[in-house]
């Protein structure tokens, strides 16, 4: 936590690299963005060209927004991702605190149990999950997706956060107890602020796969009213004819949350990721 103050040039360089990254490594993403603003012919004739006055077209976006019920899909994705993420972070952080802080029987074995949960891909249980969802009448609801993603994301979250919370000095927590803080205020006011960079990292690891998932929306919630944006965009990829304008526009819109994410978490993320390097 007492990492040296980062100097201005180093700060600048870090952002410089980030921008360079956006240009070089995200070149495919840029391609998508550029082409999403072009008409169909120009996409294939000159995929690298910027949209000109001639080739500029919002047809893709128009198709997506009209035909695809896009706003609803976006809303669905957003709700599912945010709720699942919030549940994973809150429950995960509390479980991690309990595992890191309290000595109770089977504590290490419980940690092990959770960790194994990381390894077994939840998709293997798809059929079982589907049967359970049918039994509880949750098929074609956003709740089904939230539940699955929360269950899926929790173990990794607990695993990583436990490691970080164990590194929070025991003396610090004892000092807080002597200062009259109870276990909840210790958790929220002392421990959480200290593991914030780790939380941000976990949030990103958890969020991206949820946003991008195609499998569970397809199986558990394929209904029009609860379709996610990733599933919705697939509509335009036909077996034989693909509406490239719409696909590109859909993918461009799907990048939005990553950008928002970057703006929200960037400071914490950079600190979390480079903490090893600068300490």
């Amino acid at each position, binding site marked *: 936590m007492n990492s040296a103050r980062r100097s201005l040039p180093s700060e600048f360089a870090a952002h410089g690299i980030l921008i360079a990254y956006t240009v070089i490594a995200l070149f495919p993403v840029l391609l998508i963005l550029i082409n999403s603003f072009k008409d169909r012919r120009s996409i294939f004739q000159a995929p690298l060209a910027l949209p000109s006055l001639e080739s500029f077209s919002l047809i893709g976006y128009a198709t997506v927004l009209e035909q695809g019920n896009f706003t609803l899909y976006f809303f669905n994705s957003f709700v599912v991702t945010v709720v699942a993420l919030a549940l994973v972070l809150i429950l995960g952080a509390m479980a991690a605190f309990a595992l890191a802080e309290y000595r109770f029987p089977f504590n290490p074995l419980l940690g092990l149990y959770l960790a194994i949960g990381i390894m077994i891909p939840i998709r293997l249980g798809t059929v079982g999950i589907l049967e359970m969802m049918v039994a509880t009448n949750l098929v074609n609801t956003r709740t089904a997706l939230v539940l699955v993603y929360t269950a899926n994301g929790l173990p990794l979250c607990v695993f990583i956060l436990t490691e970080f919370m164990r590194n929070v000095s025991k*003396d610090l927590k004892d000092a807080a107890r002597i200062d*009259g803080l109870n276990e909840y205020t210790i958790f929220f006011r002392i421990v959480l602020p200290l593991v914030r960079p780790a939380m941000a990292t976990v949030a990103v690891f958890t969020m991206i796969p949820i946003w991008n998932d195609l499998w569970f929306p397809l199986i558990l919630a394929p209904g029009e009213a609860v379709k996610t944006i990733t599933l919705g965009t697939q509509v335009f990829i036909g077996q034989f004819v693909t509406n490239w304008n719409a696909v590109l526009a859909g993918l461009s819109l799907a990048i939005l949350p990553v950008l928002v994410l970057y703006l929200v978490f960037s400071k914490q993320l950079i600190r979390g990721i480079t903490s090893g390097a600068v300490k």
Partner: protein
Amino acid sequence: MAQLKIDNVVKSFGKTEVLKGVDLAIADGEFVVLLGPSGCGKSTLLRIIAGLEDQSSGRISIGGEVIDHLPPAKRGIAMVFQSYALYPHLDVRGNWALGLKQAGTAKEVIDQRIKEAARILELGALLERRPSELSGGQRQRVAIGRAIVRHPGVFLFDEPLSNLDAALRAQVRFEIGRLHKDLGATMVYVTHDQVEAMTLADRIVVMHQGVVQQVGSPADLYQRPANLFVAGFIGSPKMNFLQGRAAEAGRIDLARGGALPVAELDRPAGDVVIGVRPDGFAVGSNETAPVRGKVVLNEYLGRESYLHLELEEGSRIVVEVPAETVVRLDEVVGLDLKPKAAHLFDASTEQRLAA
């Protein structure tokens, strides 16, 4: 009034008893040091006093009131940790105020107490700094300040100097001593360093394997250690021990030949251990001396030297001599016992013989 009374406190972790029934009464304003090697239970005892751990049985009372059921914050104690344990995301003022705010203290009182602590510790200029912007010594002083603002009846120190380097250690040690003089508060201080204990304590409690070995003033412990453990733990370099048999008053036959005239021995006492501090021997004539040893190492320290001698029977002792003394390696020197230098212990019970 903040007397601290510890009544038959036992602490077990599973089957391991780390405190085997500790009794201790600490007077108001007294500075008591719990001293012992790591794992002796001294830190556990301190944490039980603080309320950070529960004893398995026994009672703790402060100022006559039993506090076993109280949470740490209500016990009227404050604790200073080895690792400083400052809140990294709060500045010095925030660190000091947190506990008081939590207790619902009025804002003016908090400000006034912070001002007072800053004056005592000369930290006024650093109140807005974060812990990461402070040096090690400053951090430990901030940690002490966090204890001061609570106006506790009892200060608890858990090895507060261990993370500091030698020069700072002497400095902060001096400040803690002065603080005790100024505040007149009851202080309980845990350390494994006998120099800290000797220099700071009104009374020292020597612990070993969960049992109190001896309680007494630094002079008591140095001059009349109650058993072999205390004798070996207090003083540096360590006391030398020789096996022997006290068949008659005034003389001990050493286990491997030779005999020491020991004025302290007033009656036969069977198998004994004679403890002699490194400055208890005088290098004497090689021929008539009761103990002879070969010099295997000469450690020069400027004012004095420590001679490591191999006695004829193979055991090793350390003797302090003035730095001017000229000895060669492998030379055999004779040692005379200085008057009153011998400490006698029963060889089987390891207790001091009341001679």
